[in-house]
C-alpha cells in the first residue's frame, strides 16, 4: 500500500513537472517560421569556427519551413565585404541573406531592406535596445544583430597576486597593485610587468580597423571624438594626441612586442593564451579559448576587469555587432526574414552565449549567466557580468559609409607615429587632412 502510494506520488510529481515543462518548451518552438516548400534560399554567411556553430541549426529551419538553404559564400568578413562590393558593382545580387556588421553596414547603401517594417515590434522588443539602435543606418534597421562585441581586460591573476610584484609596485607608485582603472594606470602596469622577450605588458592590434578602433576608444575615453557634428575630422585634437602618445609610450618602453604594429586579433589572442602578455584588452569571444587548458597556458589563472577610463573619466568602449541582413533584390523576402529571425531567436542566442559571445537578446543575457552559475562556471558568469557593465557606455564607430575608407587613412599614420617616423601631432594632422578630403568628396561634410 505504501509502495503504491509512493508510486502514485512519484507519478503525480512527474506529471506536474511535465505539465510545467511543456508550455515552457512550447513557447520556444511554437513560433511559426512559415512554409516555403521547394524554395532554395541563397545566403552569404561569415565563415570561421566561432561563427559556424550557429549554422548547425539551419537544418531545423529547413525542416520547419520545407525550404532549403544554399550557402553560396562563406568567408571571413573582410573577404565577404569585398565580394559584396563586387556584387553591387556588377549588379549581381542573386542572393537573399548576407552576414553583416555595424562597421560595414553603412557602406552598402540601399542593398538591404528595412527590417523594422517586416519584423513584428514584439520580436524586436526582445533585443537589447542599444544594440538594435546601433544596427540602424539613416534610421533604417538594415541588419538584425546576432552577437555584440566590446572589449574588456583579461589579466594573469598570478602576476597581480605575486607578493614580490605587489611590494615593488607599491614602492614605485605608492598604490596597491590591482587591475587598472584608468588608461594612465594601465600604461604604468604594462611597463611595470614587461620583461621581454618572455613577458610583455600587453599587445595591441597594430593595423587595419583594429588599430583605428583601439585609438578611437582612447580618444573617446579622453573626451574627444573622431568627427564633430558637421563630420569634420577632430581626432587630431589634444584628446587624440594624448591617445596616440599612449601607444607611442608603451611601444618606446619596449613593453609591447615590437611586431605588434603588424598584429591582428589572432596574434594577440594567441600571445595571451601562450602566457606572454600580462594584460590583454580583448573581445568576449576569447573568454572560453583563454580558459581552456587545451588551447591556453593561462587557463584557470585569468582575472577579468572592466576596461579602463580615459582622462575624461569615461569609458570609450568600441562596440559593434555581427548581424544578418536581407537584400532588396531577394525573390522571397518573407523566407529570408524568417531565416534571419530564426538565426537570432532565443535558442540561437543561447547557443552563441554558451560559446562565450555576447547575445543580443536581453533574456539570453540573464539566462546564460544563471546557467553558468548553476554549472559552477564562475569564470564565464563573471565574464558576462563584467562585459555587461561596459556595454552601457560602449559606442559604435561613426556610422557613415566612409568609415572604413577613413580608417584606412588613419591607421598607417598611427603606425608612423608609433614607430617614430612622425610625431603624434604630425601623424594625426596628416590623417585628418586625408579624412577631410574623403568626407568632402563624399559630400558629407556640412
Amino acid at each position, binding site marked *: 500500500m505504501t509502495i503504491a502510494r509512493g508510486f502514485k506520488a512519484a507519478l503525480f510529481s512527474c506529471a506536474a513537472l511535465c505539465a510545467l515543462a511543456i508550455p515552457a518548451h512550447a513557447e520556444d518552438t511554437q513560433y511559426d517560421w512559415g512554409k516555403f516548400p521547394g524554395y532554395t534560399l541563397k545566403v552569404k554567411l561569415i565563415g570561421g569556427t566561432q561563427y559556424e556553430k550557429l549554422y548547425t541549426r539551419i537544418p531545423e529551419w529547413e525542416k520547419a519551413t520545407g525550404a532549403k538553404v544554399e550557402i553560396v559564400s562563406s568567408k571571413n568578413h573582410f573577404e565577404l565585404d569585398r565580394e559584396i562590393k563586387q556584387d553591387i*558593382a556588377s549588379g549581381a545580387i542573386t542572393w537573399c541573406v548576407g552576414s553583416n556588421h555595424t562597421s560595414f553596414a553603412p557602406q552598402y547603401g540601399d542593398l538591404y531592406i528595412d527590417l523594422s517594417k517586416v519584423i513584428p515590434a514584439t520580436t524586436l522588443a526582445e533585443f537589447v535596445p542599444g544594440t538594435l539602435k546601433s544596427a540602424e543606418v539613416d534610421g533604417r534597421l538594415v541588419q538584425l544583430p546576432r552577437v555584440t562585441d566590446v572589449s574588456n581586460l583579461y589579466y594573469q591573476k598570478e602576476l597581480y597576486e605575486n607578493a614580490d610584484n605587489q611590494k615593488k609596485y607599491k614602492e614605485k607608485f605608492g598604490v596597491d597593485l590591482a587591475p587598472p582603472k584608468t588608461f594612465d594606470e594601465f600604461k604604468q602596469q604594462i611597463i611595470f610587468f614587461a620583461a621581454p622577450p618572455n613577458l610583455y605588458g600587453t599587445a595591441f592590434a597594430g593595423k587595419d580597423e583594429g588599430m583605428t578602433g583601439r585609438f578611437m576608444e582612447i580618444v573617446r575615453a579622453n573626451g574627444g571624438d573622431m568627427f564633430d557634428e558637421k563630420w569634420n575630422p577632430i581626432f587630431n585634437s589634444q584628446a587624440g594626441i594624448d591617445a596616440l602618445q599612449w601607444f607611442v609610450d608603451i611601444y618606446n618602453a619596449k613593453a609591447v612586442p615590437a611586431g605588434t604594429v*603588424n598584429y591582428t586579433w589572432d596574434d594577440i589572442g594567441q600571445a595571451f593564451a601562450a602566457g*606572454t602578455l600580462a594584460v590583454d584588452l580583448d573581445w568576449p569571444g576569447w573568454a572560453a579559448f583563454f580558459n581552456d587548458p587545451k588551447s591556453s597556458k593561462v587557463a584557470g589563472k585569468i582575472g577579468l576587469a572592466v576596461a579602463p577610463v580615459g582622462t575624461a573619466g569615461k569609458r570609450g568602449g568600441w562596440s559593434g555587432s555581427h548581424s544578418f541582413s536581407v537584400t532588396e533584390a531577394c525573390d522571397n523576402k518573407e523566407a529570408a526574414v524568417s531565416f534571419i529571425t530564426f538565426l537570432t531567436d532565443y535558442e540561437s542566442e543561447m547557443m552563441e552565449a554558451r560559446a562565450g559571445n555576447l547575445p543580443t537578446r536581453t533574456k539570453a543575457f540573464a539566462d546564460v549567466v544563471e546557467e553558468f552559475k548553476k554549472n559552477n562556471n564562475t569564470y564565464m558568469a563573471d565574464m558576462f557580468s563584467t562585459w555587461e557593465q561596459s556595454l552601457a557606455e560602449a559606442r559604435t564607430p561613426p556610422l557613415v559609409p566612409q568609415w572604413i575608407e577613413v580608417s584606412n587613412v588613419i591607421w598607417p*599614420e598611427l603606425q608612423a607615429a608609433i614607430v617614430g617616423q612622425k610625431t603624434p601631432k604630425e601623424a594625426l594632422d596628416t590623417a585628418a587632412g586625408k579624412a577631410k578630403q574623403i568626407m568632402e568628396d563624399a559630400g558629407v561634410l556640412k
Partner: protein
Amino acid sequence: MQSFTRRFSPPFLLLLPAFVIIAAVILIPLVFSLYTSFTNYRLVQPASLWQWVGLRNYQRIFSDIDFWWAFGRTVVFLTIALNLELVLGLGIALLIDRITTGQRVIRTIMMFPMMFSPILVGFQFKYIFNDNVGLINNAIQSLGWSNVTIPWLVNGWTANFAILTAEVWMSTPVFAILLLAGLMAMPRDPIEAAKVDGCNSWQVFRHITLPFLLPFIYIAMAIRSLDVARAYDMVKIMTNGGPAGRTELLWTLLARVGYQDARMGMANAMSYVSILLSIYFTYYFFRKLATARASLGSMA
C-alpha cells in the same frame, strides 16, 4: 552567308573567334577601366560610374607622395628580386647541369617552392620572421648569439629584406628551370673546342655559356617581371604594406584603394600610371632579347 564568306578571306575568318575572345576578355575591360579612371567610380555606388571627374584622379596621384613611394619601392623591389633570382637561379642551374646521377630527383625537389600558393608562403615567412615566436629570433637567442629580439617585420630595411627573401625563395626555381632548359639545349662542341684551345672555366662561362643563355635569361626576366605581382598575396599576409607604409608596394596600395575603400576609379588611374612600369620592363627585356639573339646569330 555565302556573300559573307566570299567577302572575307579564310585566314580572317579563322582568326575571327580569337579576335572576338581577345576583345571580350582584354580589350573591352581595358577600355572600360581606362574610362573609369576619369570618373569617381565607387564599387558600392554603381551610379558613380557616370560621374566624370576629368583628370582629377591623375592630378591627385601626381601629388600623392605615398603613391610615389610605393611606385619607387616597387621598382627597387622588382630590380633586386629579379637580379637575385637570376644569379641564384643561374647558379643552381649550372650546378644541377653538372650532376650526372639523380638529376631528375634534384630537379623535382628544386621546384617545390613553386608548388606553394603565395598565401601559404606569406604565412610561412610571417612565422619565420615573427619577432615573438619566430624561428629566426628563437634560433638567434637559443644559439646565444644575442638576447635582443629583432623586429624583422617592423624595421623598414629588415621588413623589406624579409619580403624579398620570401619572394626569392618562392620564385628562384622559375629562373633555375628555364636556364637549366637552356643549358641542356646548348651544343657541347663550342665548349669542348674552347677547352682544347686552353680556355679556363670562367672564360668558357663568360664567352660561350653566358651569351648562349642570354635569350633564355631575358625571356625569364620578361616573364617574371610581369608575373612578380603574384607577390601581392605574400606581402598582404606578411605586412599588408605596413608598418607605416614601409613595405607598401603598388599592388597592396591598389588593392586597398580599389576594394577596401571601394574607390575603383582612383585605383584604375593608379593602375594606368603603374602599367607604364610593366611596359617599360617588358620593352627593356624584349629589346635585350632581340640584341642577344642577333649577337647569337652573328656568332653562329
